[in-house]
């Protein structure tokens, strides 16, 4: 059995995105427990890449590749987990999106990859996401955190609308905001629970938000 776990670890650690799904399938075919595959195989490697990134030994593209490999593996394993009614452990669910009128994608994706590597479950709504869609998905998924990106001073104002909608509907998620034009004073002004200037800071912030005062 160990060689299956070693292979799962390796494909994530090496960032072999296309090899991750087949590795998960082979493990399931051999009768391995899906939750063990996640914890002992794939996630253990992602956490290691995350630690090495933190130490400065690995770089962002390597971390993103490891994160995508895990997503591919989860796509195979998740249905089996759900069948057996198992929910894998995570630090919390983070719902991410770029606000309406704004099509900037990459910063948010990097934040998502780092959050996933740190042990959060991430659902990415994509770009140009209206407030109503943030609200709908937040009510459905009950995330611990809603994270919003905006790259333009003219679209950043939409972050305020999303927060207003979430608060109005008493969605208990904490809200974090980011993007080039966003500043701490802006985050405070619109009633966000936190602001992060880059992806690493976003992970620290998310940890704080779920650690201290989840409502």
């Amino acid at each position: 059995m160990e060689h299956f776990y070693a292979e799962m670890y390796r494909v994530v650690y090496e960032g072999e995105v296309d090899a991750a799904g087949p590795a998960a399938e082979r493990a399931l075919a051999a009768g391995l427990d899906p939750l063990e595959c996640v914890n002992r195989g794939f996630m253990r490697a992602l956490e290691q890449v995350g630690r090495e990134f933190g130490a400065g030994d690995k770089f962002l593209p390597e971390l993103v590749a490891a994160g995508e490999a895990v997503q591919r593996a989860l796509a195979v394993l998740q249905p089996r987990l759900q069948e057996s009614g198992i929910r894998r452990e995570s630090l919390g669910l983070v719902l991410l999106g770029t606000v309406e009128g704004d099509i900037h994608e990459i910063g948010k994706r990097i934040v998502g990859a780092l959050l996933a590597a740190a042990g959060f479950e991430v659902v990415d709504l994509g770009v140009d996401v209206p407030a109503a869609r943030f609200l709908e998905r937040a009510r459905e998924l009950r995330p611990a955190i809603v994270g919003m990106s905006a790259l333009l001073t003219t679209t950043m104002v939409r972050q305020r609308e999303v927060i207003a909608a979430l608060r109005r509907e008493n969605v208990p998620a904490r809200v974090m905001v980011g993007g080039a034009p966003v500043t701490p004073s802006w985050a405070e002004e619109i009633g966000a629970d936190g602001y992060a200037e880059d992806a690493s800071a976003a992970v620290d912030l998310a940890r704080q938000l779920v650690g201290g005062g989840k409502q």
Partner: protein
Amino acid sequence: MSRLHPRRSVRPIRPRLSLDILTGKDVQAIHEAALRVLSETGVRFPSDRALGILADAGCEVDHGRQVARIPPDVAMAAIGRAPRRFALGARDPADTLDLDGEHCYLSTDGCGIEVYDLETGERRRSTRDDVYRSAVVADYLDAIAFYWGPTVSAQDVPPSTRPLHELEAAFLGTSKHVQPETILSAPVARWCVEMALAEVGTTAELRRRPIFSVMQCAVDPLGQDGGSLEASLVAAAHGIPTGFMPMPMSCATAPATVAGNLVVTTVDALAPLILIQLAHPGAPVFFAAAPTVMDLRTGGYTGGSPEDYLLGGAFNQICRFYGLPLSMGAMATGAKRPDWQAALDNSFSTLLPVLTGTAMLTGAGMLNGSKILSYQQLVMDSEIYSVVAKVAEGIRVDAETLAVETIQRVGPEGNYLAQPHTLRHLGDIWRPTVVDRSPYEAWEQGGGRGAYDVAADLARDILAGHRPREVEPAVRREWQRILAAAGRELEATG
């Protein structure tokens, strides 16, 4: 008592030095790679209007994905219709810039969100007044040929009409050419054209003397923004020059390799210009680019790295191949303060594009990767430009400059101080504005002040003493009417 000299005319660089970073074979290989991507993979144009124009011209259009594949012959025929030379007009006709392939012009940097306040030094959110004040300083500095951006966003006016307020503030602050990067929809573009018409009078005159031009951002890789495309089509219909700036970041929105980044940069700068030429053959268009490399730790924009300098130089050669002027993103240091890093980044990122023949450089005055406006940096960047100008203009060698007669007259162990030849050529010698060359004792007695303090003094003097060429009261009233009408329309369609 102002220490200002009278405002001087714009000082372009006419480089004599020339540098090739790529061989002719390299340029050809990048061109062919770009054509292959354009025709086989295609580019996303999320605008029905744009896709319609491309389909009519023989491009293969996938309306569902909003992707157009552009055949090589369509691409090259379209680019062949663009004028090789055109002018950027100005409120003051004396400030007109000739994009003739031989001169290089520097602008302000743009689209920041904060300002280091000149009086208090604090970092604060930018306002409309900062747009105006930075335009006044740019108007005075002879190194700054046009106002790009705006330098910072006017965050104290409503988002719907912000680009129009910024354009007005820029026009009021300077009589030089203005090139906004914030005209992101066809309705806003129409209002901007109307504002320019109020100043110049007729559509024919605006065509002859476009007092503003339009810069857009590409959506790298292989994409464009729908609103920006439609805004530029409106501008091009009025003879307003347009360009699109890709900013591919190696490892994130471009391949990790410099050559691969150049392919993406070429595709994303070229594709929208093909569209403009198909819609409005002969409309003035320019290339633009600010390719860079992702910071491998933060994923952020580096605003200065050896790869940036190579990219900046190499893309100029590619644009020369197509025969169109290029606006290259230069300066824009990632440094947070006007320090050693800022000088390192901005010197290299200016020198390489100038030596490879760029037409426009954007631009001066910003820190933290174009996010914070610094008046000191604006003045100091102008000094970097003047050093680069002197270097790029190279060495003139002829009978007059060889000075053999003077050398013989002075003879062994004489000096050249009071020679007529010396006096005749004093104007050739570069002189500092803010660089400190004072003797140590004098520097110490003067309070130990450096370039930063001198630059701050100059910026304050300009703001206190310089009056830009006024806009006629009737034109100002018309702008007020336009701003009000645009406000009603744009708020309603929001």
